[in-house]
């Protein structure tokens, strides 16, 4: 519940974020709506049910500086990004501290009618798709970060695929934060509209150059038209000081197919909101997640699956690997609206704890207002099987390799659900590289 008097952090925090930008009237309306809501809500605390397991002190007490309006150049230019390349050869939009950088980006050849570019530029030309969809889906009624994102909305990725067009290559939205004297803050907003019968893959990717603290407060609004087929990847691979709050809001049409894959392997404090609304009959939604939390980092996966139409299926599968003093929360809320009969919703959260001090929490929440539905949830928390370890070692396999085999097997279940084979292989490699395997 929103507090009646907003917490004392509300205005001081706002002061770090700079001025709400000016723009066309239709956009000013959206920004003011966000600002007003933020002022009502204030920053969340652990007294808010939706934030019970996640302290945001690192954000609330942080000292930030809004990113400059022009994208900073990065030392070494595009070459500096090469070591982080995921092998994707399609369109790549690069954002430096939240600002679109045409110099670092490549669009390439696109099928007729497809638009891929910076949202700022699309706003500047009053793009009709942007005006129709921007800010229309994100629910900020109880979401201070979403509200702030709207208030400071200026740039991000814009992807529009018209009806029946199949976009083969994934669109890569690469968000790079650069080292600076003060911690940067940005509010990227991506708008992805995939029309009826179209097909596309979008990769939203957060990367830090350097070890500085940065705060990304991102929102993606993703429209999946009737019978469209869309895959979205969220990759969090920022520095261990980074703060990242992102919200993916998906609006699904009739018989549409959508898959979200979250691969979280960086950051100090990561909140991953995924909120699909299955608004058309026969829609199918997969929320697949894999996260690795080390040191004292905290990852909060916050799912909110809304079944509005009948005959829809949703699947949530999240797997976490935690070491050191790391902690996580998976909260999976399924809301089945009245009339959403024949809903089939499943949820499973599994965690592997590699140390005694790591902590994984799971909170399923079912809210059901229809009577003919199937909803199940399950959760497991365990350690590496000592019997399995002994079996492997008894064959000569050293402890480090054995641990690697078992952890990889655990992660494999998530990785195997990812549709883009080359990207999956690349993500697997990078994920496994980060595993803390310890000494032999």
């Amino acid at each position, binding site marked *: 519940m929103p507090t009646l008097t907003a917490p004392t952090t509300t205005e001081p925090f706002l002061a770090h974020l700079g001025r709400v930008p000016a723009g066309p009237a239709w956009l000013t309306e959206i920004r003011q709506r966000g600002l007003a809501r933020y002022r009502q809500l204030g920053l969340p605390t652990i007294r808010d049910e939706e934030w019970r397991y996640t302290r945001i002190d690192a954000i609330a007490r942080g000292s930030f500086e809004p990113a400059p309006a022009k994208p900073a150049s990065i030392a070494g230019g595009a070459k500096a990004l090469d070591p982080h390349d995921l092998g994707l050869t399609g369109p790549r939009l690069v954002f430096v501290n939240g600002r679109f950088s045409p110099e670092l980006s490549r669009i390439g050849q696109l099928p007729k009618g497809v638009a891929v570019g910076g949202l700022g530029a699309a706003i500047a030309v009053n793009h009709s798709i942007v005006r129709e969809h921007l800010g229309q889906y994100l629910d900020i009624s109880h979401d201070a970060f979403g509200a702030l994102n709207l208030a400071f909305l200026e740039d991000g990725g814009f992807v529009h695929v018209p009806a029946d067009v199949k976009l083969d290559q994934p669109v890569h939205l690469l968000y790079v934060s650069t080292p600076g004297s003060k911690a940067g803050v940005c509010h990227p907003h991506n708008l992805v509209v995939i029309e009826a019968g179209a097909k596309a893959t979008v990769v939203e990717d957060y990367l830090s150059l350097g070890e500085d603290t940065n705060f990304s407060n991102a929102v993606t609004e993703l429209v999946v038209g009737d019978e469209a087929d869309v895959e979205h990847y969220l990759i969090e691979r920022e520095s261990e000081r980074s703060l990242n709050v992102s919200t993916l809001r998906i609006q699904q049409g009739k018989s549409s197919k959508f898959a979200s894959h979250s691969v979280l392997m960086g950051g100090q404090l990561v909140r991953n909101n995924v909120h699909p609304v299955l608004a058309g009959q026969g829609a199918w939604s997969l929320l697949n997640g894999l996260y690795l939390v080390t040191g004292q980092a905290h990852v909060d996966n916050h799912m909110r699956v809304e079944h509005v139409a009948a005959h829809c299926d949703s699947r949530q599968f999240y797997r976490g690997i935690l070491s050191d003093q790391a902690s996580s929360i998976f909260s999976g809320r399924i809301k089945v609206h009245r009339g959403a009969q024949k809903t089939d919703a499943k949820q499973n959260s599994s965690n592997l704890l590699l140390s005694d001090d790591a902590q994984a929490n799971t909170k399923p929440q079912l809210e059901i207002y229809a009577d003919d539905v199937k909803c199940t949830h399950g959760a497991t928390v365990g350690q590496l*099987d*000592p*019997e*399995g370890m*002994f*079996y*492997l*070692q*008894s*064959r*000569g*396999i*050293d*402890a480090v*390799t*054995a641990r690697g*085999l*078992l952890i*990889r*097997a*655990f992660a*494999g*279940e998530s990785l195997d659900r990812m549709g883009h084979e080359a990207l999956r292989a690349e993500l697997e490699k990078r994920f496994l590289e980060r595993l803390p395997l310890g000494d*032999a």
Partner: protein
Amino acid sequence: MSLLEIRNLHAKVEGREILRGLDLTINPGEVHSIMGPNGSGKSTLAGVLTGREAYEVTDGQILFQGQDIGDLSPDERAVAGIFLAFQYPVEIPGVSTTQFLKAAVNAHRKARGQKDIDAVEFLKLVRDKMKMLQMKDDLLKRAVNEGFSGGEKKRHEIFQMALLEPKLAVLDETDSGLDIDALRIVSEGVNALRDGKRSFLVITHYQRLLNYIVPDFVHVLVNGRIVKSGPKDLALELEAKGYGWLEQEIGEPIASA
């Protein structure tokens, strides 16, 4: 030099003393069988030999090729040449049998200073050994022991033994849960590996297995010590008379699990 020499071995499991002064010497090429009632310490001996963590050695020594292996980890003992065929092979979901076997073979090669096996050579090696144990190829694609029948699991153990070519193979109740056909296949696999140099320690509850794998020596383990040793005929005597008659001979009651 003997291959294995166990001197006055005492070991605890969960604070309870299970092995209480066990002595055993195995020379290269010999097949020894350990028999004994439930709870006598048979599986503990297998665990202690292979370095299982839950087993605490409180006294005595295990020398393998003259070297005290007390401080070696399970993988170090394995590459030194000790192999355990598990009584209950462990299922490892998500790890393919191919991946597992390759890791095991390469670990042994690494210990010998050889580089990783190449894919073609590996496949040939695996196919040859599989044929010997009448195993199906599709097993390679499945997760380690997952969904294997009891017989498949035991054959898989002997197959791994054939692949890794240990100096000492410890068979922990390999006959349990096997029907007569599977028992025959497994025993033939073991016998094929008897080359006059490799040694075996066959732990069993029943004499039946020893009809197929004929030992050079039979030892009776009771209350954590070897109380009687003899030629293979001792197994028949135990089969006929049970273990009870030994109580008088050793002058103490036989503890059971």
